[in-house]
């Protein structure tokens, strides 16, 4: 980017291409470019432009809503949701391991009772992460598993519970109703539960991610986002419009398929990677 001999117009076009191919989206790209040319009408140096762009993106990524308070409830209940195949189950494995490493007692509720071998997959992750797991049989009521999971966590003095749910498209009304039912089951056992609702998004997803955030948030309220598969070539730029539109914090990024491949989100590093 910004090789010597480029005119300012070429530079702006190069920037537009970079932003759009990062999945930042047309409208957000136009807004960013308009903002920058308004704030800095005299910009003539590529390095200056790059720095200003990064700052603009970081400011869009810094949501007003602070990330949820340090977990004080016991157990702290986290519900994991998202569309099919984005990495929910794997992310729970990673989060459970992280919590175990921090000395917390972890329990996982296998509330995906629908997809083939979903429970078996989670059992393996629970073992890797040193967490207990509560499961029923295939096709059991997911809300019942969620409820039993929290009940077991209370009985066993667990610090944190992760509730895995089946992947579902945000446009499927009956499946979104099921998610509401699971959420209600959690609050039946602990009135403030779930204390966190983590929406998992795939970094290779384009503009459809906005629709996913909107509908999951409308249905059950989303408190944080995990963006997976950033170890590929996708830039995940869609989070820029998500953070500025919905003011929901991006908490974690997934960068691989192993237990340790989860990092806290860092807006500066993310903005750097875009350029």
């Amino acid at each position, binding site marked *: 980017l910004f090789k010597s001999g480029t005119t300012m117009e070429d530079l702006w076009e190069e920037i537009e291409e970079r932003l759009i191919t990062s999945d930042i989206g047309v409208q957000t790209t136009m807004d960013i470019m308009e903002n920058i040319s308004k704030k800095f009408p005299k910009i003539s140096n590529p390095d200056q432009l790059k720095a200003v762009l990064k700052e603009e993106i970081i400011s869009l990524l810094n949501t007003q809503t602070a990330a949820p308070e340090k977990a004080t409830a016991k157990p702290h209940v986290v519900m994991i949701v998202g*569309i099919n195949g984005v990495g929910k189950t794997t992310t729970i494995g990673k989060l459970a391991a992280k919590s175990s490493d921090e000395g917390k007692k972890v329990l996982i509720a296998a509330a995906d009772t629908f997809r083939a071998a979903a429970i078996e997959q989670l059992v393996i992750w629970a073992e890797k992460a040193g967490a207990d797991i509560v499961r029923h049989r295939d096709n059991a009521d997911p809300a019942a598993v969620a409820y039993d999971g929290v009940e077991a966590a209370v009985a066993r003095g667990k610090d944190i519970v992760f509730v895995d749910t089946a992947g579902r498209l*945000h446009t499927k009304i009956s499946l979104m109703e099921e998610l509401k039912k699971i959420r209600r089951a959690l609050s039946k056992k602990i009135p403030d539960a779930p204390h966190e609702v983590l929406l998992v998004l795939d970094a290779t997803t384009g503009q459809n991610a906005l629709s996913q955030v909107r509908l999951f948030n409308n249905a059950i309220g989303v408190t944080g986002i995990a963006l997976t598969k950033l170890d*590929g*070539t996708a830039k995940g730029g869609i989070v820029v419009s998500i953070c500025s539109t919905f003011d929901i914090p991006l908490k974690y990024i997934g960068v691989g398929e192993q237990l340790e491949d989860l990092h806290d989100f860092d807006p500066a590093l993310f903005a750097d990677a875009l350029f």
Partner: protein
Amino acid sequence: NLSERLDSVFKKLKGHGKLKEKDVEDGLKEVRIALLEADVHYKVVKKFINDIKERALGQEVMKSLTPGQQVIKIVNDELTKLMGASHEDLNLSGPVPIPVMLVGLQGSGKTTTAGKLAVLMRKNGRKPYLVPADVYRPAAIKQLKKLGDQLDVPVFPSDAKKDPVKICREAVKKARKEGYDTLILDTAGRLHVDEELMTELVRIRDAVHPSDILLVADAMTGQDAVNIAKSYDEILDIGGVVLTKMDGDARGGAALSIKAVTGKPIKFIGVGEKLNQLEPFHPDRMASSILG
């Protein structure tokens, strides 16, 4: 939507009499935005707009009483042409047992599609054999085994400690012995930039010579679709694509990007999680989905 936006672009001209080139260019700007919002790749959009510019500046638009609708018609025609003439089926040629190989990124829907293809093949009078070749993902082999059991389709008893190349070779031998005429090889999801794992796919291909290699890709993939498809095609020479999760509200611009950059046909679309939810791809329906 695009139709309304184009109508408003051209409505401003109702009083000005003759349509000018600049007006059509403004209309094409709206088309460009619509395609980018549908996740079509930046460079694919640039080329597409350039290619249709000549026709858009021709008589059919300039002389029309409804230039907005004419532009939409041109875009729809050209998109449909780009997406392919008609449905292209699985390539099942060569001596039995014929292997079909499913490849693609993590979570795109390969294992589920394997089950769906088994249903389709059996409907067409074939005897499919499911082969779990994913030895990495926890419970992946069990997942395909469960699907096979649901469908009463035989599944090769893969051992997760074995090399996937060896698994596929042994599966071919077993299929030949048991009289199954088609093998469906379900491979582990992998990044197109993972050299070691992409090489594993080449080794599987060279060991069993699949008659068709299908890239299973998510319909809601964004700009990265071009990178994924290009790499997979360059490394493996894919036969076609299955676009999954088309039952959502993604516009599916990835379909256009993938077709434009590889030239390979989209053969099927996944329209749900159930094993009967696989449909043949129709270029014209995709074109109108992308346009929104």
